[in-house]
């Protein structure tokens, strides 16, 4: 049986937190308060939330350049994340990483990665540690459809199978890698089928439906915890924003994004389903929305008020010892 009341409300809060966080950083980016490149997760919230609902702080995840949602879902401190994205002191990576390197190491979120295909080999390593140390921890890599085509990803999947590691390859197929369609770039048309060819089970799920994602991820995590080796989940989803903030998205049909935001909004779908299933009332959900909005606003204000790291920090943390 899928999500009970409490589990649903928790997952919904996570999804809402991600959505509000992303819209706020988008606003701040527009106002010039966020340096660098910004890739938002808006629209894909059900996937990170549905997966991380099954994980504890002892389990590991690794993310991509689109990492804010994964970090929040794994329990990352939103205030620290805001500061990090703004390049401020007190940020989760001391202002040295920024959006593309968001992390919450203490929560098992081992880092966002700006190299497409950089994460899967690393997650195999985390899974190897989990197995070698005799734990039942699992390790999850989040990868896009684009990243599914990298050689590094293929090598990682094969090694995980060979070593029978507790690794979950979660592919978020949002239809695009920058401005190129997955229909074009994924030659096999089906990432799950490819994973199966490596010799592991592979599930496909509607990534806009938190209930479906939750169930598929439950199966995946149980599979790994039981020592049955790696598993793949391919979740189909849509990306609400451009590849990065500022992307004119000329490669998308006019009206496509608007239509998808109406029909495929995982938050809207979650609300409707939950009310229908009597898991939550409208009032309960509205209350969560309000609390989240306040929380995000406070975090953003604190981020804006914080200073940049002192220039004396430039040469710290390069090595673990005196150089």
């Amino acid at each position: 049986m899928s999500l009970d009341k409490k589990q649903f409300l928790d997952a919904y809060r996570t999804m809402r937190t991600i959505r509000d966080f992303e819209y706020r950083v988008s606003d701040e980016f527009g106002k010039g308060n966020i340096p660098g490149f910004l890739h938002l997760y808006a629209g894909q919230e059900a996937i990170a939330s549905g997966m991380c609902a099954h994980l504890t702080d002892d389990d590991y995840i690794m993310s991509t350049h689109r990492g804010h949602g994964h970090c929040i879902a794994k329990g990352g401190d939103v205030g620290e994340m805001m500061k990090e994205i703004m390049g401020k002191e007190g940020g989760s990576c001391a202002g040295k990483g920024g959006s593309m390197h968001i992390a919450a190491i203490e929560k098992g979120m081992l880092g966002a990665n700006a190299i497409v295909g950089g994460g899967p080999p690393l997650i195999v390593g985390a899974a190897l540690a989990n197995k070698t140390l005799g734990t039942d921890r699992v390790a999850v890599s989040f990868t896009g459809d684009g990243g599914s085509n990298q050689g590094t990803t293929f090598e990682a999947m094969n090694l995980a199978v060979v070593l029978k590691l507790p690794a979950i390859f979660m592919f978020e197929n949002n239809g695009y890698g920058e401005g190129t369609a997955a229909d074009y770039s994924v030659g096999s048309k089906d990432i799950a089928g490819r994973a199966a060819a490596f010799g592991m089970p592979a599930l496909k799920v509607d990534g806009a439906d938190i209930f479906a994602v939750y169930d598929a991820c439950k199966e995946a995590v149980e599979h790994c915890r039981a020592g049955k080796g790696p598993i793949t989940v391919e979740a189909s989803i849509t990306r609400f924003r451009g590849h990065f903030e500022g992307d004119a998205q000329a490669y998308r049909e006019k009206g496509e994004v608007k239509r998808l935001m109406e029909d495929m909004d995982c938050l809207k779908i979650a609300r409707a389903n939950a009310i229908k299933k009597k898991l939550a009332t409208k009032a309960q959900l509205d209350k969560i929305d309000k609390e989240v909005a306040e929380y995000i606003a406070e975090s953003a204000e604190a981020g804006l008020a914080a200073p940049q790291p002192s220039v004396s920090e430039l040469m710290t943390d390069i090595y673990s010892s005196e150089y």
Partner: protein
Amino acid sequence: MPIKTYRQAINEAMAMEMRRDSTVIVIGEDVAGGAGCSGDRDAYGGVMGVTKGLFPEFGEARVIDTPITESAIMGAAAGSAQAGLRPIAELMFMDFLGVCFDQIYNQAAKFRYMFGGKAECPMVVRTMAGAGLRGGAQHSQNLTQMVTMVPGLKVVCPTNAYDAKGLLIQAIRDNDCVIFVEDKFLYETSCEVPDEDYTIPFGEANFLREGSDVTIVGISNTVNKAVAVADRLAAEGISCDVIDPRTTSPLDEDAIIESVETTGRLVVVDEMTPRCGLAADISSIVAEKAFGALRAPIKKVTAVHSPIPFAPDLEDAWMPQEADIEAAVREVMGYK
């Protein structure tokens, strides 16, 4: 003469060579952008729009959007170069070199030599380097030093639009693997660029300023910073030779040595980490070959030995700035 941006100059060089020679192709991620999408098929033209317009003119057989798959892109370019094409492969950010380096330094760079001069690799890898855009540690590096040290590769670092066009046409016509390193800060800069085709030979430095007190050698955008410093110092009576080698491999050692023989002082600037870098390399060449002419220790101005930080203040402190170049010139001038 018409004024064109660095971006336009590079685009024009590719278009002209593609018109002239039907074996020239462009291959890379989003070089058109929009493959398989229902909107504009030429939506991106590369992340920085440098290849825009090539797809409508030359079509999908010659402007090839690939999946995200750098090893395959570089391998396909090198293999097709061996088999009759002249590919221009785009490596979106130079930071991604690590993903595909084997195909470049063990494969493309070595065909001709390993196979006794019987194989060829007429390919160009266009890539983009440089810090200052707050891209973080994996999107801001200039790794020119890594490719310069590989025998078999030629390495080009254009610092203005005029050079970019002439050097890229030269690169496309060259029969070796050429790494063409664009500085992402320069795309919007412009200068006079002829409409006709022209080439700039490799290994011939450009003297941007002529002076008698200090030689300043810069690589990539640091050359432009050096020029600004030289112009300011000229008002005080300090006269600098500013040299842009334009290609780091081959390197115009003679131009640098001749200059140091008249000035007796050398400041070398690059935006890379200091160890085993181009500034170190050029310094060592001068120390070895023009030691007798030196009146002061050589001064290197580079980034610091750390990954590139994200926070703006830290990144600015990381990068060599005009003030650092100026301080270095004053230091060598003040040496007793």
